[in-house]
C-alpha cells in the first residue's frame, strides 16, 4: 500500500468490515486483500476494534437440532491443503446436502451392488474422489433426484468409487 493511499485504504477497510461496500467494490477489495498484507492488518485491526460490540450482545441460544445436524453433515476436507477452499456452503438458495462420508471411512469401502463392478480396477485418486463428492453434494436432494441418479450412474460408469452416494441418496437397492 502506497503511503499516500494509506488513509484511503484504511477507511475502505473500515467500510469493508462494517459491510458497507457495494458488491463490486467488495469483490475488488477482496482481491486486493489477498495480496496486500498491510491491508489485511487494517482489516484485522478493525475487526478487533469492533469486536466488543458483538461480544456485548445478549447471547441467543440456538435451537438444539443444529449441532447434531452440523456434526453429521460435516463436509469432506480434501487433505491438508493450505489454499483457500471454495466451500460448498450455499450463498443463498439451496442448502446443499453435505457429504457425511469421509474418504477411507466404512461407507466408502462397501462393495458395489453390482453397478459398475467391472470398473473397479483401481481406486479413484483422492482428487477424483473429492470432485465426485463435490459434484454430488451440489445436487439438490429433493428436486434434482433424477439428475442425481443420472450423475451417480455416470460416475459409476466412469469408474469412480461413489458408493457413499447410494447410502446418502437412499438408493441402496438400485
Amino acid at each position: 500500500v502506497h503511503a499516500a493511499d494509506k488513509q484511503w485504504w484504511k477507511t475502505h477497510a473500515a467500510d469493508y468490515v462494517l459491510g458497507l461496500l457495494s458488491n463490486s467494490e467488495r469483490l475488488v477489495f477482496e482481491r486486493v486483500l489477498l495480496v496486500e498484507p498491510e491491508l489485511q492488518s487494517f482489516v484485522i485491526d478493525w475487526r478487533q476494534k469492533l469486536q466488543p460490540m458483538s461480544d456485548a450482545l445478549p447471547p441467543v441460544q440456538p435451537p438444539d437440532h443444529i449441532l447434531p445436524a452440523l456434526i453429521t453433515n460435516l463436509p469432506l476436507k480434501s487433505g491438508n491443503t493450505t489454499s483457500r477452499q471454495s466451500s460448498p456452503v450455499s450463498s443463498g438458495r439451496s442448502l446443499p446436502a453435505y457429504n457425511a462420508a469421509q474418504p477411507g471411512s466404512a461407507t466408502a469401502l462397501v462393495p458395489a451392488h453390482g453397478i459398475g463392478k467391472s470398473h473397479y480396477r483401481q481406486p479413484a485418486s483422492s482428487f477424483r474422489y473429492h470432485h465426485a463428492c463435490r459434484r454430488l453434494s451440489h445436487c439438490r436432494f429433493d428436486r434434482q433426484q433424477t439428475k442425481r441418479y443420472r450423475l451417480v450412474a455416470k460416475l459409476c460408469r466412469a469408474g469412480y468409487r461413489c458408493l457413499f452416494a447410494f447410502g446418502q441418496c437412499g438408493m441402496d437397492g438400485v
Partner: protein
Amino acid sequence: MSNTALFELQPQFPQAEKLASLLAKCSDDDEGGLAELYHLTAANLFALQVRILGMNYMAERALHDTYTLIWLRSSEYSEELGEPMPWLTSIARSHALNLKRARRAGKHNATETDQDRDQTSEIGSTSEYADTTFLSHHASTQPLKQSLEQLDINTRDAIVRAYLDGWSIEQLSEAYNKPIASLKSAIHAGMLSLRGQD
C-alpha cells in the same frame, strides 16, 4: 507494525487461548473440537446472525453454514489473524450478510408476506439501538463505548447498525434521509476517531 499498536490489543474474549486450541483440533479433523467450539461460541455468533437476519430459519441455516465454514477453514487460522473470536465473528457476519444480500436481491420475486416480514424486521427496530448502553456488559467494551459516545448520535447509530444489524449504506441513507456520500464521509470520520489516532 505500528498500526497494530494503535489499537491497544487486549484480550476481548476470555477464552482466546482455549478457542485457538479448539480451532487447531478442528484443523486436525477432530469433530469433538468443533462441538466444544460450538458450545462456547454459538450463542454469541447466533445472537449476531439473528440481529442481521431476524429470528427465522435463515439465521439457523446461517449458523449451520458458519460452523461448516469454520470447520473447513480452521487450518487457515493462525495467530497473525488476530484473536480467534474476531476471526470467528467475521466468518459469521460475512456469511449472514451474504445471505441477507441474496435475500434482498431475490426480493422482487418474493411473496407479499415475505416482503412484509422483511420490512417490519428491518424498519421496526429503528429507534431501539441508538444508545450504546448494551455495551456496558463487559469491562473490555468500555474504551469502545466511550469513543462511540463521543460521536454524534447519527454517526454512532449508523456504525452500530451497519455492524450489528447489517444495514447497507442505502438503507442507512434512507433511514437518516441523508445522501450516501455525506453519510459515508461521516462514517469514515467516525471510524477514524474510534481508532483514536491518525
